[in-house]
């Protein structure tokens, strides 16, 4: 069931979600890795964990799952405790 269209605010929200719960880190400096989009990889991890369709893109189902009330412990198991 479609939600509203995904906008820039949603994308920013999703990025923060992935940083908080899937240990997404923002790359800085001149390093360019071809064919590697860390946000898409983390998005796929999240979609796999929740049994969503694995697209690697921010779709409405994925965004809806991100907006559900949840526990604040990272889903990347060791991230918080390593």
């Amino acid at each position, binding site marked *: 069931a479609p939600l509203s269209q995904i906008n820039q605010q949603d994308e920013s929200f999703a990025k923060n979600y992935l940083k908080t719960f899937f240990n997404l880190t923002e790359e800085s400096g001149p390093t360019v890795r071809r064919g590697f989009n860390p946000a898409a990889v983390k998005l796929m991890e999240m979609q796999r964990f929740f*049994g969503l369709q694995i697209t690697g893109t921010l779709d409405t189902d994925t965004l809806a799952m991100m907006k559900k009330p949840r526990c604040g412990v990272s889903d990347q198991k060791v991230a918080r405790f390593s």
Partner: protein
Amino acid sequence: TFGGFKWEKNSLTYRIENYTPDMSAAEVDDSIERALQVWAQVTPLRFTRIYNGIADIMISFSRQAHGDGYPFDGPGGTLAHAFAPSTGIGGDAHFDDDEDFTFSSNRGYVLFLVAAHEFGHSLGLSHSDDPGALMYPIYSFSNPETFVLPQDDVNGIQSLYGANEDPVEPRPTAPPTPNACDSTMTLDAVATLRGEMLFFKDSFFWRSYPQSATPQQTRITNFWPNAPVNIDAAYESQQSDRVLLFKGRQVWAFSGYDLVSGYPKPLSSLGLPKTTKKVDAALYDVASRKTLFFVGSNYYSYDEAKETMDEGFPKRVDETFSGMSGKVTAAFQYRGFTYVYSGPYMFEYSLRSGRLFRVLRNSYFLRCT
């Protein structure tokens, strides 16, 4: 688990440092105590409350930044967090006081449920990807009075601490999360939704996308918070772009995620006799724009456009669906074929001719992955 982190002792202390204004102190005390007992019932772990000093599990309510480097985010979003077993902050559980916690209501977040989940972390459990598990990271309301720890969580905690040698008898067991690989499973209902297939069982349903081999399992109430569980029947009205769920003498209609105003309604609002106790299955026929309601050994035909029941019904099921002698348990239509379920079997028909093509199993559409 968090790589096997666990307490090296079975006697643990806890301390409630402060209270939320949402509930009385007695309600908080009771919620916390019962949340710890959830884990004590299935392990050798025992919990003792202390009122000052440092406990293994320090429990507090706070807002925004609260000194641990993981600030809360205001209402919604993160409800609470907890730290894996270790000294210092290890084991501690923090609750976001910008949330509306409750003792047992489904308005707000039941503190007992949130705390039981967090204490799972305090004892060494990570998140589960089983949507029926307490350790699934998404909050889902359930009645705290009838709560039973799901088997996935029992397995997790017992992998760390072993079983309770002195269990309370009879030990309650939670129904396992339905498994798509169970070839004996009888689905409650099957429906379509904007090109997807929905398979309902107990409190859950699977969504199956034509382009994906893996069905996605979700709690019904995570998708439709106002929906019933353990439903009898479901169908998608392509006429009104709604999904209708049936349970007992009532029908619920959803448009997207939202319950349509005025629902739930009695079955008689669809023209079914007032004596009808339940609908066993329902399907929407795209060609005729009629909906068939299966009730016992009969079925009715409902005109979606006119919103009236067709004349000449009910008819016997086996009058139209040759060979269907068993009870119809679910039904839907896909790519012009009509699928009628009876137990774990699915019968493929042409609705126009009534011809039976194949007898298949659940796994034909609901794949075991």
